[in-house]
């Protein structure tokens, strides 16, 4: 009895597996185009950027392109909505602001902020705490002084005197 069950199930599995292989062969024999490709280009001019290289290899697929489109549309829609809500100035956002006003602070406060920013650069440490503190200081500066401080930072990074710990991004 058990032998007959085993044979029956094996046959069923064989049929299912065979159908899977058949589908694989059918899919492999045609060109599988990328399911979705939503390219955004924003630039201020000057250099013509390259398009994304497409070193594409076809593999097996069981989701068709419309399903993939629907899934990614939903994902991107959710992400965009959340992100736009986050940058719209809503005071209830959970993350603290990283910098302060564009309206320049009083001269004395700006001098103190610039000094503090310089000290961060001189410290040689560029971890998350230093980055956040640096940007917060920069927020109190007028645009010209802010750019000055940023260029000091950039030079420190480029010269290697300021390094991100644990392979973090050079700038944040």
């Amino acid at each position, binding site marked *: 009895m058990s032998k007959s*069950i*085993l044979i029956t*199930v094996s046959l069923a599995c064989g049929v*299912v*597996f065979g159908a899977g292989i058949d589908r*694989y062969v059918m899919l492999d024999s045609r060109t599988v*185009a*990328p*399911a*979705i*490709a*939503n*390219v*955004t*280009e*924003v*630039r*201020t001019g*000057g*250099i013509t*950027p*390259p398009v*994304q*290289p*497409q*070193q*594409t*290899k*076809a*593999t*097996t*697929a*069981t*989701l068709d392109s419309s399903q*993939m489109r629907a899934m*990614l549309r939903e*994902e991107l829609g959710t*992400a*965009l909505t959340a*992100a*736009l809500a986050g*940058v*719209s*100035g*809503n*005071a209830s956002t959970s993350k603290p*602001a*990283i*910098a302060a*006003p*564009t*309206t320049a602070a009083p001269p004395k406060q700006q001098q103190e902020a610039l000094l503090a920013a310089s000290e961060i650069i001189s410290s040689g440490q560029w971890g998350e705490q230093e980055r956040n503190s640096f940007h917060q200081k920069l927020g109190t500066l007028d645009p010209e002084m802010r*750019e000055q401080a*940023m*260029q000091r930072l*950039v030079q420190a990074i480029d010269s290697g005197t300021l390094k991100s710990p644990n392979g973090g*991004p*050079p*700038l*944040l």
Partner: protein
Amino acid sequence: MNKLFTVAALTAGLLIQSTVFAGANSNNTVSVGTANASGAFHDARNNSGSTERISCYLGAYVSTIGNTVTNNYISCSATAANGASYYCYVYSPPETWVQLVAALNESSWIYFYGDSAHHCQGLNSSQDSSNL
């Protein structure tokens, strides 16, 4: 009977596996030039070695508490497998750049470029299933 379950489980596993690894797949390692960089987040994370990395940062702040208009800051950084890196930043970027960076996700590929003083001049991105 145990053999029966084993065979059934193996068969089911094979069928499920084919749905997990599906679709076209691009290989977009992080590439760094003198004043530009590109790469896909997913590949940068999954490529062998711990050097490769690409990221964008979006900071938004208000001038006074309760203000509904934000001032924004964007920076993007990339480090290739050989350790070469490029980064750029911009204060008060165009709104389209803010939206572009906010929409980046695991399926994103990004290309950014700027000048030698690291001011961003352009950001391009694509969201593509083959980047995953």
